[in-house]
């Protein structure tokens, strides 16, 4: 079990540099961040999956990772993107269902009764590099890669 009943597990945390800009809360793929606008936000440690999205987007250096080291901002163009090996993909759609950013979808049937459907990265810009699809794929068909590695 990934993140249940382990309250002692260290997760990402938000410190007092937080200005309450709400960007991380909007991006968090598992809806673990909450807080009022212009006030310090808070990460629910029961739900955090340590994907690091909040650390990569925060401009104020307000987020510390599991070891307590402050995270540095990474430009969005250098975030990893999922690459789906269509030979391995069975089109089960489990990745589509876990993707809260709405970046993945199943391909449309090409003709009536087409069942050779595959997962695809249809909204590349929406992907937040949370890696949940890579972790969840039962066929291990998804690998996260740097944009320059993707041909």
């Amino acid at each position, binding site marked *: *079990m*990934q*993140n*249940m*009943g382990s309250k002692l597990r260290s997760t990402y945390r938000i410190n007092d540099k937080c200005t309450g800009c709400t960007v991380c809360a909007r991006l968090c793929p*598992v*809806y673990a961040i909450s807080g009022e606008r212009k006030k310090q936000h808070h990460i629910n440690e*029961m*739900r955090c*999956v340590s994907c690091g999205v909040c650390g990569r987007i925060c401009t104020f250096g307000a987020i510390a990772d599991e070891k307590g080291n402050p995270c540095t901002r990474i430009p969005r163009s250098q975030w990893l993107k999922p690459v789906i090996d269509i030979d*391995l993909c*069975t*089109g*089960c*759609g*489990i990745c589509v*269902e*876990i993707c*809260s950013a709405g970046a993945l979808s199943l391909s*449309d*049937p090409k003709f*009536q*009764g*087409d*069942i*050779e*459907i595959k997962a695809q990265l249809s909204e590349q810009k929406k992907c937040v590099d949370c890696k*949940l699809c890579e*972790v*969840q*794929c*039962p*066929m*291990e068909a998804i690998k996260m890669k740097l944009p320059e590695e993707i041909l």
Partner: protein
Amino acid sequence: MNTPIYLKIDLSTGKSEKYIVSEEYFQKYLGGKTLACKLLLDMTEAGIDPLSPEAMIIINTGPMNNTGAPSSSRFNLSFKNVLTGGIASSNCGGQFGVMLKRAGYDGLILTGKANKPSVIEIVDGEFFLKDGKDLWGLDMEETQQRLPKHYGKLVIGPAGENLVKYASAGSGERMAGRCGAGAVLGSKNIKAVIAYGTRRAEIFEKEKFQRHIRRWVKLLRDHPMTGESLPKYGTAGLLNKANATFSLPTHNFKVGHSSKANYVSGETLAKTRLIRNSGCISCPIRCERRVKHKGKEIKGPEFETLGFFGPNIDSADLDAIINLNYICDLLGMDTISVAASIAFAMELKDKGIMDFGLSFGDPSTLEDALYKIANREGIYSDIADGTKAMSEKYGGEEFAMHSKGLELASYEPRRSVGMGLGYATSNRGGCHLNGGYLALLESVGVLSVDPQSPKSKAELTVLMQNVLEAVSSAGFCLFTAQAHIPKLFFKLGPYHPITRMTNRILKHSGGLIRLLLKSLSLMKFNSMLLFPHAEAVRLVTGIPMYTGSFIILGERSFNLERLYNLREGLAAKDDSLPDRLTKTPQIEGEMDTVVPLDTMLPQYYKVRGWDENGVPREKTIKRLGIE
């Protein structure tokens, strides 16, 4: 071994506790409807009212859920049947099952009654009971739109709130229709159950499992039934076939053939209305119909709905059916039961017994009627109680098309007598799937094992019932079992000498099947062609599951449900069909066009290892280990 974890919630107090299923139970009952039935037997008293606070409803998944195995996203609701008083299990393919599992639970056990309309929320193992007053009264679509987007949702509609006896519960556009799950949730003041989490499925032998899945998906995609017919025409593709074999209920089961059936067939639907096919999570079969309705893309009707809102009420208006199907889904009503009750009401008018303002051949009044039924307005409240209650009040039992109280499905059993035996013996009432779905071997499939003869039907029914039970309890969709009919027959066609010879062999296979059922415990092997399910279960859970033990699991499940029914007062006399099917021939004067139930039942009891009163013998109970 990782055994399933359930959350037991007492809605009256709002308290919850974890219930960890013992290893013994997990190995014996696996999950889904089988494990749920065992827990209902253990945890509830006999004779309670299904809509009382003491009643219990179990919402659970099987071990395969969220593993990526084909057609495994289904979840199950088990409770005391509102229509029959026996066992009820209702199965649904929406995203709720997957989300519940990701939230950390294999199932929820609900008892008691919330003191106000409420929503159950499960997030990453935590449970909250939230206020649902704002949602009460809304239809299913709007309820789901108002709930947070990322949750898996299971909701009820107005019909469930008003305790319509066949109210459904739904997730997305998929419905757990039969037996009245919506009414049970409504009686507990639960408008919605929502779940969210990110937990991953644990797999015992990962690499082997992945290989197995890949091969299995290929097998399903290559099969003419699961890879071509179902994706192309959906379940609706069976309609023309059923019509051709005179097994399509028409005019409230008066006859089995309608000259207008092609107007509402799967082929017509695909040609004129279909936008695309779609499907449940992790399903390669993609049988869901997407159609346009009033400028919106919605789920299209299934075979049962087409048959019952079409030929069975003498109508051939496809647009009306699409609309009625949509309204039933909004209100949260089982299309089979509501349409069958409407057909009964129409016949009551025909016979001059009672006028509900509904008449055969006129679907225009039905939209209005559906709203009135869901809101239990005036005399329509009687229709909301189902066919059995109506026939007890107004008479007309001989044409009240139900068994045990649950309305029959859209297969006319007089031209598919094995299906008739299935309807009569099915534990949840007149259900085709619970009943063994012998129509597939008799009237709607490529094979046609003498549909008029009772020969070997008892044995075939027992075998098929066991198989379908086992597939269900592992959490698979029953359609995955259709791929076991060898491809060869589809290639040769139904009239080829080899196909015909197989039909004749199967007709005389009774003795062989009895022998097979006795020697199941020796079948310690797994084969891709026979039961990929068993191997998948073994690879995911680590339980030593083989072809033989898998079918025995189904047998155990069926007997367990029978024991539940016996405990609740159902008996051999309830293994019955309406007189229209057993006494009135479908074709006047041809006495072999009735269901010879009296000939088949004793043989069926014998094959099952039950005594002449339909009670499982001591020996049978001991062999299955369900005492």
